[in-house]
């Protein structure tokens, strides 16, 4: 039986896998020791659990366990990775290259760095959401110390050519940081094959708990160091002080193990559902897919339904389907999604977009329900839309002088 509401906002966060919760529970109630307590069994158990989780996590991304620095999540990982490199390598230069479609945790970190005297180049993306590799290479200066480009985008799912990017970084002796929150656990990420020097990711986007993440910091070829951003007990090899979130870390480890084990089957099943959703919704007139369909995460699609406004659209079914929109009205800022605008979409199309993030627990019945509910709402709202009426009358909307208000 179909259970409502349906959750299709997995890019925002994923539900926890019950197997993850099961692994975590003893670390709240029985093995509650501090992993830094060296002198009693409680501490030893906690440390052992953390070490094991570190191995599970490292294995998923092809890293050495010593290269995993636990954080509170990806925002902290982004801050620590970028600011940490900026401060540690200050004698080599002060220039960072990133892109306009990065997550706010990266963009705002870069803006902060600019305020403290750093220089940042924000690369534009092509209409499919990918960066231009020639532009990237051309942006490198003698003072460039870091390239920060995300693995996959949170709004449109576009996967950047990370291997080509790392080859360019390597050629010029520049470090590569990537925010891989949306990619790790969903697609094969291998820090060595991909040539990544630093990488932020988080448990709650891969069926693990909220409040725990990791920063991968390369130890060999080259050995990378970051300046700690919090002072304290010198945990995590001095890079991130603070008592480790043992149950969270245990859950993170389990989540990684499950992703590794289920990735192939999950991807096959979920991408089939995504394709069905997309194909059915694209049968509506004037529907457009945003971002590359070729280089894209298997569980994501982002579609604009022209002449209907995103928030109005969501209201037609948001009691029963959890989705997000690039519309301004769903945010406090009244500005539509900067990611969609960076693709060159007009504000009108950005206002009309829906983001679908499928997941491990999405099934076909849910997709069928969603297709029906969205199609009906789009048609209903277009009947109510003056823009749709004008479009149907053949009026060129771009030629109208709209009264700004």
């Amino acid at each position: 039986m179909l259970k409502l509401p349906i959750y299709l906002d997995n890019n925002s966060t994923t539900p926890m896998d019950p197997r993850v919760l099961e692994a975590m529970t003893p670390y709240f109630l029985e093995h509650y020791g501090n992993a830094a307590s060296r002198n009693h069994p409680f501490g030893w158990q906690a440390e052992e659990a953390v070490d094991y989780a570190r191995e599970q996590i490292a294995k998923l991304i092809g890293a050495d366990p010593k290269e995993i620095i636990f954080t509170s999540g990806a925002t902290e990982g982004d801050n620590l990775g970028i600011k940490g490199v900026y401060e540690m390598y200050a004698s080599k230069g002060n220039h960072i290259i990133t892109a306009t479609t990065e997550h706010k945790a990266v963009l705002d970190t870069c803006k902060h760095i600019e305020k403290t005297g750093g220089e940042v180049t924000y690369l534009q993306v092509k209409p499919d959401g990918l960066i231009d590799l020639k532009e990237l290479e051309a942006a490198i200066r003698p003072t460039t110390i870091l390239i920060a480009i995300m693995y996959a985008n949170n709004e449109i799912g576009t996967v950047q050519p990370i291997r080509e990017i790392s080859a360019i970084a390597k050629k010029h002796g520049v470090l590569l940081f990537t925010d891989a929150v949306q990619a790790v656990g969903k697609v094969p990420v291998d820090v060595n094959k991909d040539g990544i020097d630093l990488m932020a990711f988080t448990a709650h986007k891969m069926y693990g708990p909220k409040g725990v993440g990791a920063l991968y910091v390369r130890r060999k070829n080259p050995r990378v160091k970051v300046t700690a951003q919090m002072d304290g007990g010198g945990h995590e090899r001095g890079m991130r002080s603070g008592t480790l979130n043992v149950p969270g870390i245990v859950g993170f480890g389990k989540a990684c193990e499950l992703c590794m084990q289920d990735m192939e089957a999950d991807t096959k099943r979920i991408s089939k559902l995504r394709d069905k959703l997309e194909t059915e919704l694209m049968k509506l007139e004037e529907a457009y897919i945003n971002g590359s369909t070729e280089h894209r995460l298997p569980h994501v699609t982002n579609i604009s339904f022209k002449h209907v406004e995103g928030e109005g659209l969501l209201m037609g079914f948001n009691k029963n389907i959890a989705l997000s929109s690039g519309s301004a009205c769903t945010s406090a800022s009244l500005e539509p999604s900067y990611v969609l605008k960076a693709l060159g979409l007009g504000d009108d199309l950005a206002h009309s977009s829906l983001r679908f993030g499928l997941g491990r627990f999405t099934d076909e019945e849910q997709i069928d329900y969603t297709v029906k509910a969205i199609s009906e709402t789009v048609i209903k709202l277009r009947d109510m839309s003056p823009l749709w009426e004008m479009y149907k009358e053949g009026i060129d909307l771009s030629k109208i002088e709209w009264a700004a208000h």
Partner: protein
Amino acid sequence: MAYSEKVIDHYQNPKNVGTLDKNSKNVGTGLVGAPECGDVMRLQIEVDDATGMITDAKFKTFGCGSAIASSSLATEWLKGKSIDEALTVDNMDFVEELNLPPVKIHCSVLAEDAIKSAINDYRVKNGMDSIKFEESVVH
């Protein structure tokens, strides 16, 4: 974001959705907002020449639930009012009736602008001067 019940009701059962003949002398059309801003309202009134009463009102709106509810409510209020009465409708009336949160006040402003714009269109068509309104400063 939690909507008030009244907004939800107007969204689910909008009143007076439709189109009047914009070329008719008795019809005033107001088209306000812009696609780039995420809301466009078209409000139309049909006026009885002899009495100056608004006999019919229709709307079509591209926008969020609050924008749709504001325009639906506007058509309900306008029907049966005289042009002069219609001019007294204030955006805060919408805010109060629909319990709009601060972030949605611009929807009410848009509805007020749509009413004024429709009235002016009707006036100009019938040889009257268009009324100058103080600009509403939102956005």
